[in-house]
């Protein structure tokens, strides 16, 4: 039986971690850490979980501790945000390269400089190429559901990869919303016992992790990482099917909203997708066929499926809450790559919005949809990449 609660995104993720009851949690307790780990530390202190916490002196060490514990053979979690994820960067590659299924909620916040603490996707987009699976979440419910499903995905014997669960800083992490919790036992049964794969603590079969591999096999090793990523999508869908049976909530590799017959569409991640859906309804009421695509699985990116979902649309705007300065926004680059092989493809544009927690308002969505509507008629894109909601 589901329990209806009013909680923050951080509280929801911490509760998901409590329900999973992992073996080890690396914790760096200081800013930019959020209260997600504070809450989880309370569960540890109160004896609500059997987790062993390792308090460390930096996020780099936090991820290092997680890597050690996961290689030893434990189910391992941590959480971070912003500069913390940036400081982990080197170790993120080692977690994925060693094929360690560490689960980490990431509260998406801006990177310095200038110093800013607010919602922004620059942190997780900076970790795009680290070999981690990335699931993105619109609200607290999705962050909770994704955190639970992440264990089944990352720990799958065909996958064995670390997973980041991304949720918007403050907008979701620190806001209270209505959501539903599963029962503890349901989560426990869904996630199942941790299955080991080549644990270091199996002393009868000694092994080593991360040894030197030079020109002889490094290329093949990385090709294997690419290969395993191609299998992730099906596992994500299988896990989502089981999760729907349990919760009634349906998940895919992305969500579409009124997209099937749309002339124009917005592609957008996380909490801004909800605001956009409301504005799409308004445009539909005015007779403008607007739709939305919200990626859930960003790494690996489902190129073919995204192309299939968008191919009939006349004009698409990909909206990024992060920038690759001197390039296009990271989400735009993926969608553009996905659409390129199509013979007839939508006109495409890129808007950067909401950096450093700048509010994404319904008026911004309306502005973009109005421009898309004009483009769909004229067939002409004036400015390909542009900042919106910006003070000139």
């Amino acid at each position, binding site marked *: 039986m589901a329990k209806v609660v009013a909680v923050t995104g951080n509280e929801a993720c911490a509760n998901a971690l409590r329900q999973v009851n992992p073996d080890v949690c690396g914790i760096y307790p200081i800013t930019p850490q959020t209260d997600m780990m504070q809450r989880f530390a309370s569960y540890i202190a109160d004896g609500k979980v059997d987790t062993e916490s390792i308090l460390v002196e930096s996020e780099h060490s936090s991820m290092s501790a997680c890597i050690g514990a996961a290689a030893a053979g434990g189910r391992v979690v941590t959480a971070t945000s912003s500069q913390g994820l940036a400081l982990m960067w080197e170790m993120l590659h080692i977690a994925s390269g060693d094929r360690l299924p560490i689960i980490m909620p990431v509260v998406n916040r801006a990177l310095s400089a200038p110093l800013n603490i607010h919602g922004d996707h620059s942190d997780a987009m900076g970790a795009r190429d680290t070999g981690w699976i990335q699931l993105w979440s619109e609200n607290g419910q999705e962050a909770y559901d994704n955190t639970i499903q992440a264990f089944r995905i990352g720990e799958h014997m065909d996958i064995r990869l670390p997973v980041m669960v991304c949720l*918007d800083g403050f907008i979701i992490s620190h806001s209270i919303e209505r959501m539903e919790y599963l029962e503890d036992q349901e989560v426990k049964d869904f996630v199942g016992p941790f299955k080991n794969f080549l644990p270091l603590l199996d002393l009868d079969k000694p092994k080593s992790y991360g040894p030197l591999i030079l020109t002889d096999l490094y290329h093949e090793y990385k090709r294997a990482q690419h290969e395993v990523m191609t299998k992730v999508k099906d596992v994500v869908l299988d896990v989502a099917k089981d999760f729907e049976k349990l919760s009634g909530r349906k998940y895919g590799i992305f969500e579409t909203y009124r997209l099937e017959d749309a002339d124009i569409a917005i592609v957008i991640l996380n909490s801004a997708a909800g605001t956009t859906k409301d504005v799409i309804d308004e445009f539909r009421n005015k007779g403008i066929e607007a739709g939305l695509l919200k990626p859930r699985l960003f790494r690996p990116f489902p190129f073919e499926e995204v192309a299939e979902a968008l191919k009939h649309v006349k004009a698409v705007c990909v909206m990024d809450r992060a920038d690759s300065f001197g390039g296009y926004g990271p989400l735009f680059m993926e969608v553009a790559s996905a659409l390129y092989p199509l013979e007839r493809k939508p006109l495409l544009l890129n808007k950067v919005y909401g950096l450093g927690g700048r509010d994404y308002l319904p008026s911004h969505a309306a502005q973009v949809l109005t421009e898309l509507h004009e483009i769909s008629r004229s067939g002409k894109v004036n400015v390909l990449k542009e900042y919106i909601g910006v003070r000139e």
Partner: protein
Amino acid sequence: MQAFPEYGPERAGAPLRAYNRVASKELRMHCPVLEPDVVTVVDATLLDSINIAEGAKDNTAFVINTTKDPKEIRAKLKAGPKQRVVTVDATKIALDCFGRAMPNSPMLGAVCKVTGLISIDHLLDDVRKSFGKKFSQKIIDGNLEATKRGYEEVKEG
């Protein structure tokens, strides 16, 4: 239901904006409330420094913690004929009930009365539950009394 503050360099006494949405359908909008149905001002000195009526609709209700008469506040806000202006001396109620100038619970009572979204009994039950875990019986009783008085002592003008 959504509840979220605007985060910034907060410290005691600094102005703070927080938002709530209540609906019977799923709330997908994730941005500040731009056109409020209810504006609650916990510290009336803010009336002199910011425009609390920004984005207000024709029928928005203002609930103000002040010793002043609602008519005086109505004039100050230049409130429209359909806009409601409600005052309550929440700070005095808080001082009377539990001896500290923390007007939150009487303000909750006042908002409960003005919106009619939930019954006062339901609200008192919630206050009892949320205070019950952390505070002594004296504090709980004081806050329950303060919530009730906030509900009863609203003045509309």
